[in-house]
């Protein structure tokens, strides 16, 4: 469709003209989309992500999940620039192995979070363009969620959404899990089945309204028995 910009004041089409020198620069980053979400319960944690990998107007893959299993009790969700996600997870895996060999035990979720913070900060001046969320069980067996910014600032939360649809999901989670903006409601603790159902509903909503989210949903449920994975189809358009 021809826009009004192509037509000059008299109504005739404008001649093509050279607008002057323009600078094209190489950007080390790209935005590959994707949404990640983590919820912590009394004795479980859920990390969920969509599986669409996009760039600009194209979809590179419909089967590229963003949850990475780190240990038996910890899952990392990372979205943003896929190249940095891959490198970051490689470095974390190597550091986990080094820790296991030096200390003869697996890293706990809290320790992994602190380590990820320093790994991200070592790239303070040339950041990893990745939004990370760690979900897992802490030493007492309770659910823990740690959310990060691209340069390593982190804190422990009960629930967090990150990635392209995070601004749409976070208010919904604040309302349903945090009971914010609701008066006179009994604060019922979240059960595992209710949490899983909520995560599915929340991603279906995200896929409706965010172009970069869709295709399928990968849910990782972390309990003391281990990590259970589920795949649920989402809108493919």
């Amino acid at each position, binding site marked *: 469709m021809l826009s009004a910009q192509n037509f000059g004041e008299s109504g005739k089409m404008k001649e093509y003209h050279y607008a002057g020198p323009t600078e094209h620069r190489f950007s080390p980053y790209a935005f590959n989309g994707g949404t990640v979400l983590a919820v912590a319960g009394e004795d479980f944690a859920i990390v969920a992500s969509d599986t669409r990998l996009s760039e600009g107007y194209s979809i590179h893959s419909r089967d590229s999940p963003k949850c990475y299993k780190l240990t038996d009790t910890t899952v990392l969700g990372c979205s943003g*620039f896929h190249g940095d996600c891959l490198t970051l997870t490689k470095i974390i895996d190597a550091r986990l192995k080094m820790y296991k060999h030096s200390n003869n035990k697996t890293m706990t979720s809290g320790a992994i979070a602190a380590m990820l*913070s*320093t790994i991200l900060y070592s790239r*303070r001046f040339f950041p990893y363009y990745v939004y990370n969320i760690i979900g897992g069980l802490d030493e007492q067996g309770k659910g823990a969620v740690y959310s990060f*910014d691209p340069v390593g*600032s982190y804190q422990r*939360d009960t629930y967090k959404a990150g990635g392209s649809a995070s601004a749409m999901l976070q208010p919904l989670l604040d309302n349903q899990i945090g009971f914010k903006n609701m008066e006179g409601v009994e604060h019922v603790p979240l059960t595992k089945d209710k949490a899983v159902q909520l995560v599915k509903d929340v991603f279906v909503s995200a896929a409706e309204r965010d172009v970069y989210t869709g295709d399928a949903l990968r849910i990782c449920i972390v309990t003391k028995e281990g990590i259970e994975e589920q795949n649920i189809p989402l809108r493919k358009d």
Partner: protein
Amino acid sequence: MALAAVCGGQSSSEHFGQLFSGKQARLFDRPNHFSFGTKIQEFAVPVGNEPSGFLRSCNREEGVRIDLNHGTTTLAFKFRHGVIVAVDSRASAGNYLASNDVNKVIEINPYLLGTMSGSAADCQYWERLLAKECRLYRLRNNHRISVAAASKLLCNMMLGYRGMGLSVGSMICGWDKEGPGLYYVDDNGTRLSGRMFSTGCGNSYAYGVVDSGYKEDMTVEEAYELGCRGIAHATHRDAYSGGSVNMYHMREDGLIKVCKEDVSELIHRYREGMF
């Protein structure tokens, strides 16, 4: 430099030299590159660009938005019975509110604490590093580090990376042999001792409230009230501050956490006639 050697500061001046030596390839050819920064801390720098402008230039590309957590109001003042420290708890990333429940105070030891304002990652990282150095000092010298020395350590860390785009506005508060101590340290390397400071984008509002209510012979209750008011009014007017007020009191026998109050409740209480 003696202090640098004792505190392991040598490694950071070594890196300073490497960053500006122009031979960026050296950073990746060393055989211990695969220790991944576990033995000495390494910082990667974008080639060719000056680091502080780099992130801003990336944000112009379509789709790529790297927003870092930011924004605060913190305040601290000395009075007859010690030091009161009050901070808000909001972290914003661009226009998005990343969290309303961030902890902006780091308890280095029971007699020393640091506040954080500016970039969340910078403050968290450097103050954790400061806590590590303070702990090492205690182990090596068998007495706790003074507030002046701790703030000097942080100040020197900031000077090592001056001009590279760090954003830190911190107050180091404690009680040592000299009595109550309060220092303001920022990313330019400014280090000031004083009776009252407020940092962050809401600091002007906090200064107005605390300056008008401050009395040297305040009771402890009055001081708590003043700290709460300062932060509450600042969060009311500044968009990038909010959440809840976390208040600490540094006394001769150590620090105590006084309260954590939601700002909306406080504002309703203070401005009853207005709504």
